[in-house]
Every structure is written in C-alpha cells, then in structure tokens.
C-alpha cells in the first residue's frame, strides 16, 4: 500500500525527522488559509500515488496566500497518470542548499533492508543507479542488530564531509530506519534530504510503501488507505478478498492461484489475445468469491469474453461451478464465457455446468484459444 507524501511525512516527523510544517487542503480556500497561517512562501503539492508529479505540473512554489489559492485551484482536480488530484499538501518552502537521497528497501538478494544513499538527490534514484552507480552507497541492515551507529555514520560521511552534518544525517538514518520498521514498510525514502543555506538538515519530500501483509497488525497504518486514489474496481476486489489488477485487454480472466493466473494471461497473449485483468480467487472455494469475481469483471465494458481457468487442488471445482451458476442466474452474462476446470470434484462440476447450459473443458490451451477467438468476435 502506498502512503501519500503528507502521511509519510507525519510518520517521519513522529520519529524525529525535521520536516517543514505542512497541512492538507482539499479546496483552494483551504490552501490559501494554510498559506496565510504559515505567513511565508509555500509549496502546493498534489497528493496522488504517482511519480513525476513535478513534471506534470502538480507541484508549485507560491509566494503569497493568493498565489497558493490560485495554484491549488489549478492542481486540485488535475489528472496525473490517470489519477485525479483530490487533495494538496501546503507546506512551508525550504531554502535549498544541497539535495541528497536517502532510502531503504527490503532487498530480496541480501534478504535484508538495504539503505541507498546518494549525494545526487532530488532526482529519480533509478536514474542515478543506471547512469552513475558509484554515486550510490548501499548499506544492508541486519535487523537482529538494527542499524548500528557506525553504519549510520558511514552513510553520513558518504553524503557530507563535515562531521556535524554527517552526525545529523546519521541520526536521520536511524530515525528513518525506526519509522521503516515500525510502520512495516517495504520502501521508505526521503528525497530530497536538504541542507539549507543555514546548515540545517530538512526532509523536503517523503515516500513510504507499506507491505500489505503488515496491515492486519497495524490498524493505524491500514487506516491511512485512501481508496479515492485507487482504481475503483481494484478497491472493490480487495474488499471482496480477491486479488485483481485491471489491464487494457478484452479477455476477462478468473483463475485460482497467482502463478497460474499469470500463466493464463501469458497464454491469452500467446494465442493472439489481450488479457483484461489479473484475477486470483485464491485457494478457498467459496462460491461467493466467484460471484464477486464475475461482477467485477463484467463491470469493465472492454471485456468481450470471460475465461475461467481453475485447477482444483484445495479449490473444489464444484464450488466454482456453483458460483458461476448462481452469479449468472442473478445477472445474466452479456458476453460469452469459456470454462476450464480440472482437479478436485471435476466430474460433479462438469455435471452442474452442463445441467445449467454451460460447456466446460479440462484443457487449458483449448479454453484459452476459444476465449481469445470469442473476444475477437469470431468463434
């Protein structure tokens, strides 16, 4: 789960990181009022889960409250990478001397959280990694010991030759690490970490991505989810305990298991089609899940055919068959459906489907080819 900049900054602030004052506004008037309260130049920043906000015109410097109102008015409602800006952060503009990058991710190779720091901050770190890798220092952290001071200092010195700044940066590393661990992050970054002309260290932008598996035990973090900033069908699917990702094709896919779901999409493509989605109904064989899956998929007007691919292990295929029957009785399908079922209780499932006017095969390749042809208007 992505946090908004303002949410990440609040968490970092709670861990002691120095962050310029800021508050969220949902209207231009609010933005103006906040700017007036601060009585200084502010930044107005679109709060959406998308990179490149600056380039898209979603981040503006405002000298006066009236200016803030005007800029907020332009940004609110703007669409950035398909996401509508519903709120802006109005925050005191920091004087910028130098900009550094400080981030932590969970690294698969070392199986540890790994710090990445670079004096080349303010820009995309992947770009720095690709073009000037020597400008990035990587420091893995053994969570059993936490981030030792010596490693924090090593990063501090990598960013700043001056010992006072190095110590200050080391402290921020430890605060960032604490925030990362306490919030269940898979990524946390400060970019840029700014040294002001007065020699102060300030976090001007912050980002956090939370491991979805942490949300159950961290209700205070889970509560930060902003469903307005997500694809509605994906929100709907999540609330129905389905894993769903919307894509641009026209073959709607319903599969059990993530690997098989990806393989099914790939096979759609292999046979010349385009998948409309990734959808994993998971291991449980609750007919309700099938009903929800059909509802979500058929809500997409692009979908021209529906493909079920179920390999019954834990999943009972008769449950899936029953789900299909129930769902289509309540809401008759407007597009053709192709069903592939095999495994646990296959014979019962086939019988249920036949009795209700569906046909089904047990071969994956055949089913996919059929679905692709149907979506393309053939048969």
């Amino acid at each position: 789960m992505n946090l908004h900049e303002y949410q990440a900054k609040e968490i970092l602030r709670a861990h002691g990181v120095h962050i310029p004052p800021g508050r969220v506004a949902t209207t231009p008037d609010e933005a103006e009022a906040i700017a007036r309260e601060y009585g200084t130049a502010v930044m107005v920043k679109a709060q959406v889960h998308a990179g490149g906000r600056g380039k898209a015109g979603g981040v503006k410097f405002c000298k006066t409250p009236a200016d803030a109102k005007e800029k907020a008015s332009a940004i609110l409602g703007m669409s950035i990478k398909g996401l509508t800006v519903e709120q802006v952060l109005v925050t005191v503009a920091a004087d910028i001397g130098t900009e550094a990058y400080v981030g932590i991710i969970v690294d698969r190779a070392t199986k540890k959280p790994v710090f990445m720091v670079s004096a080349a901050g303010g820009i995309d770190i992947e770009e720095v990694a690709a073009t000037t890798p020597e400008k990035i220092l990587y420091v893995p952290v053994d969570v059993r010991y936490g981030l030792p001071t010596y490693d924090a200092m090593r990063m501090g010195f990598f960013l700043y030759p001056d010992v006072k700044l190095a110590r200050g940066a080391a402290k921020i590393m430890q605060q960032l690490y604490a925030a990362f661990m306490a919030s269940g992050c898979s990524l946390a970054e400060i970019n840029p970490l700014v040294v002001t002309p007065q020699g102060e260290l300030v976090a001007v932008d912050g980002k956090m991505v939370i491991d979805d598996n942490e949300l159950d035990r961290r209700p205070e973090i889970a509560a930060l989810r902003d469903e307005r900033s997500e694809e509605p069908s994906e929100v709907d699917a999540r609330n129905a305990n389905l894993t769903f990702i919307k894509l641009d094709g026209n073959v709607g896919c319903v599969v059990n298991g993530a690997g098989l779901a990806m393989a099914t999409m790939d096979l759609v493509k292999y046979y010349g089609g385009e998948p409309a989605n990734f959808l994993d109904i998971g291991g449980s064989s609750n007919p309700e899940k099938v009903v929800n899956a059909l509802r979500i998929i058929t809500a997409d007007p692009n979908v021209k055919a529906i493909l079920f691919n179920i390999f019954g292990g834990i999943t009972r295929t008769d449950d899936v068959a029953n789900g299909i029957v129930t769902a289509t009785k309540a809401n008759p399908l407007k597009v053709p459906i192709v069903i592939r079922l095999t495994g646990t209780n296959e014979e019962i499932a086939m019988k249920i489907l036949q009795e209700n006017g569906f046909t089904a095969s047990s071969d994956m390749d055949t089913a996919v080819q059929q679905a692709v042809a149907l979506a393309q208007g053939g048969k």
Partner: protein
Amino acid sequence: MSVFIDKHTKLVIQGITGRDGSFHAKQMMEYGTQVVAGVTPGKGGQRFEGTVPIFNTVMDAVQATGANTSVIYVPPPFAADAIMEAAAAGVSLVVCITEGVPVLDMTKVYPFVKERGVRLIGPNCPGLITPGESKVGIIPGRICTPGPVGVVSRSGTLTYEVVYQLTRAGIGQTTCVGIGGDPINGTNFIDCLAAFEKDPQTKAIAMMGEIGGTDEQEAAEYVKQHMTKPVVGFIAGQTAPPGRRMGHAGAIISGSSGTAAEKLEAFAAAGMGIAKRPIDFVELIKARL
C-alpha cells in the same frame, strides 16, 4: 530416492487443529506421510483423529516423537514465531504453507534458521511431495506419480498444472518442491537444483519461475556452471505490468528489473530448455530424458 523428504520423514504439524491444518493433516495421512505429532497450544494430551498425539509446543512434540520435519498451517501473524519454534526445537526441515507473512518478519527468521542449519521451505508455498513416499504441504497427491523428473516452482496451481501434464504424459517425478512466491523465502531455486543434481534418481528438472527478483537469473547461472542434468524453464508473468504485485508478494517488476524477458534470456544463455506454454514441458522434458 528423492530430495528433502522421503518415506522416513517424521512429520509434526503446527496448527493441526485449525481449519487448513486439520484438512491437510488428513490428506497427508491418507497419502502415507508419517504424521507423528501435531501442535496446538492448550490441546496438549489430546489426539488428532484419535491417533496423532497433540502437544502444546514443538519442543514437546519433537522430544516425544522424534519428528524431524515440521509443516506450518498457522495464521500469518504467528507464522514467523512458529518457524523459529520449529527450528529451535531441533527439526531439520520446516515447511511453511502460510500465505501473508510480513516480509520484515522473514528478515529475522531467515538468519535464525540459517544459523541453526535448518532448511526452511516457504513461506507462502504449497510444500513438497515425493510421489509414492511422502507429501508435506498441500500439493494434491493424485496428480503426481513417481518418476525421473525433479520439479521446482515459485507457484502453487501452476505447478499442479505442469505436474498434471507430465503425469498424464507418463512422466513421473522424484520430488516436486514449491518454494513459494514471497520476496524472501528459505529455499531458492539453486538449493533445489543442487539437491536434484545430487539425487541419482533425478534425470531432468522442470523449473517454473515468475517475474520479480533475480532468483531465476542466478539459477540460470548455476545451471550453466554446475548442473550436468538438463533443466527446462518457464516464466509466468510475461504480460504483467511493471510495479504491480501479481498476487504473490514476490511477483513484481521493480523498475526495469525482474522482467520475464530478462529471465528467459538468462535461461537461454544457460542452455536451458524454454517452455513457452506449460504444456511445452511435456515434449521438452521427454526429449531430455
């Protein structure tokens, strides 16, 4: 022969009285796995299905029954502790089925099992099966049959699909291992490839990877350097968009890294067979036996 488990495997089931644990306990017992103990705190002294003794702790179970392998069916918040409990109690293999274990928990669990020399498979995996001898986890027994192919995969149902195709074509398996779809897991492709290389019964290996991470690339390098046996590979997620988690926590393309294309390239460079579709495994493996 086989890898990791065989008919001598003595299994303790953590969470044996839970919904998933009890269902699969019965499945494993029916398959012939030696289920010697179960663990559910507070139910120590009772028996599962009237036969398998239940204990309050894994340590009690191991001491009383000599279990050498554990399988875990506890909810995600308790899984990390359950893995460490098993490793500390002295089993040599821990298989964690639980899906949804926080990855930061795994950053702590991983060194814990490593420093005890315990093999962990999973989490978020279907477990493993040595057809005709023992199954530990949830892989459906009836789709497997004994034979010369080692199977290793990051996925569950996709593995079933491939194993089912192999079995239908008359190609049996030594052991099928699902290593799990999480970013940090206990056993990776290389561990399994090395084990299959050593196993005299295994003549060829089917390997199913996914987008995300670099495990497949490293496995390909390993195949190139160390494997004398043929390996056929597949990558799921060629149509996945970058930055989106495709169900599995580990199946995510970060920036331009972890794509199916680069993994398939690594397979090709290692001289591996490449299955474009799951069904392709049948012919590719057959040609290599």
